[in-house]
């Protein structure tokens, strides 16, 4: 089983380790509730080195990714990132991704651990014949996340240079930093918790030093190591989807409530640098052009809009993602069925007791007839029905 470069650190911290996507990763250190609460009130330190890092480089990198992904990467500014998806020609989701534009011809794609190989293979196939290389850099890169209201202070203090860049960065932007110990990192203001936070891409060989530095700097400010259990409970409260539960080959971005990532209209693109090396934005919007799955996704968009315009007329098997809130802590879990009276209304894809809200929350796919906010459904929780109310996502939003 592959190990994170921080594996020995987790063992030394007494973490409970589990097999996650074939990697041995920490599920918790001190406790689920303490870790979840630390991220909401101070800061949490996460090892997410199991995620995949894929470099796409070359003169055709931007245009190639425009074709391969559902969003137009040619529109992403330098120093910015974009949440997007890789879909099949039929519009099913192969993975959800964050793509960081490192340069006009260089993109860093972060994929889920379980899908990295599939993403690499799809990109290589879709970019074949173009002036671009696709390289899986996952083994060389460690990814450490610091999330919570104190994260900016902690990461800025970890910097030897560029602390001001960290403080000035905005959500979904990234900057290069030199951390204490002369460690070069990419510091991205992205995350999976619903709090402010940063994800640090560091060379695998520097991972241990960065992990320990974060604890040294952050510990006095309330930072504690947090595992995959807290990561999951935090992202659920933040209404963020998880591949394999809310997202999969059998779902479209529209059904998942993420139709915004499918870009169909024209937009301004980044132009290759001129003789002076400066990168500029096109004066006029450029047509989106064709991309893998475009036809199927245009049809899916139309079907989705029709289903909301006329819920009773939507096909019996059409389902859309909603949030659900229970009345007590007894929680519907992945796979539990939902009912409206005796009629099956849908299925829960993720569910757990919410530490912040004090009641059960869930994400579920239901027929459009049951998707209106305020609709009361019943979850079959191990033989007993628990009422759950359709609630707008996210369940939690930071102040």
């Amino acid at each position, binding site marked *: 089983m592959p190990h994170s470069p921080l594996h020995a650190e987790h063992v030394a911290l007494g973490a*409970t380790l589990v097999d996650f996507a074939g990697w041995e990763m920490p*599920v*918790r250190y001190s*406790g*689920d*509730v*303490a870790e*979840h609460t630390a991220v909401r009130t101070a800061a949490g330190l996460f090892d997410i080195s199991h995620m995949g890092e894929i470099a796409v480089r070359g003169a055709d990198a931007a245009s190639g990714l425009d074709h391969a992904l559902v969003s137009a990467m040619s529109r992403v500014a330098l120093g910015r990132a974009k949440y997007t998806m890789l879909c099949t020609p039929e519009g099913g989701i192969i993975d959800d991704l964050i793509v960081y534009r490192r340069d006009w011809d260089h993109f860093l794609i972060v994929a889920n651990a379980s899908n990295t190989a599939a993403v690499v293979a799809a990109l290589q196939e879709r970019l074949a014949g173009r002036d671009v290389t696709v390289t899986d850099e996952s083994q060389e890169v460690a990814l450490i996340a610091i999330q919570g209201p104190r994260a900016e202070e902690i990461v800025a203090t970890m910097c030897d240079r560029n602390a001001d860049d960290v403080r000035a960065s905005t959500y979904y932007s990234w900057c290069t930093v030199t951390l204490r110990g002369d460690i070069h990192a990419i510091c991205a203001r992205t995350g999976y918790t619903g709090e402010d936070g940063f994800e640090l891409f560091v060379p695998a060989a520097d991972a241990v030093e960065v992990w320990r530095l974060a604890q040294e700097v952050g510990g006095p400010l309330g930072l504690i190591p947090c595992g995959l*259990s807290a990561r*999951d*409970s935090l992202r659920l409260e933040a209404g963020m989807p998880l591949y394999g539960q809310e997202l999969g080959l059998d779902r479209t971005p529209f059904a998942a409530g993420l139709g915004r990532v499918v870009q169909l209209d024209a937009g301004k693109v980044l132009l290759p640098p001129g003789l002076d090396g400066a990168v500029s934005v096109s004066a006029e919007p450029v047509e989106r052009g064709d991309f893998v799955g475009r036809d199927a996704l245009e049809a899916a968009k139309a079907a989705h809009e029709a289903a909301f315009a006329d819920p009773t007329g939507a096909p019996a098997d059409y389902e859309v993602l909603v949030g659900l809130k229970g009345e*007590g*802590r*007894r*929680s519907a*879990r992945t796979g539990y069925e939902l009912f409206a009276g005796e009629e099956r209304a849908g299925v829960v894809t993720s569910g*757990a*007791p919410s*530490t912040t809200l004090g009641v059960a929350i869930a994400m579920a796919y239901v027929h459009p007839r049951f998707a209106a906010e305020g609709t009361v459904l019943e979850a079959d929780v*191990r033989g007993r029905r628990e009422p759950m109310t359709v609630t707008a996502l996210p369940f939690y939003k930071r102040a």
Partner: protein
Amino acid sequence: MADVPEDLTYSAEHEWVRGEVAAGSTVTVGISRHAADALGDVVYVEAPRVGDTVTAGQVCGELESSKAVSELYSPVTGVVMSVNEALTADPSPINADPYGAGWIFTVEVTDAGGELLDAAAYSALIA
């Protein structure tokens, strides 16, 4: 080193029993450290109610954590005499002190039949 007190007996479903299991005696029941650690922080307990009949080896409640749900089995047969009501508002003693403040219910034993493991046998089971 597993936390398995010598003075208790255990079920294969990871409950502990304090007290002699004999018809007419009252015993206290909880879940082991091993079970509590596997669950993670317990946020919801559903215990049997006072007066309920419980049967050794059968489900009598459930425990819920962030990541998991676990059924609660009765290790003995009898009538529930008391329930740790404090756990309704705050189940954290189950994780913090599973053999003390984390006790879940007491039973007046009506049938002493059924096999419980001593500390050594339970330690071997969870090793």
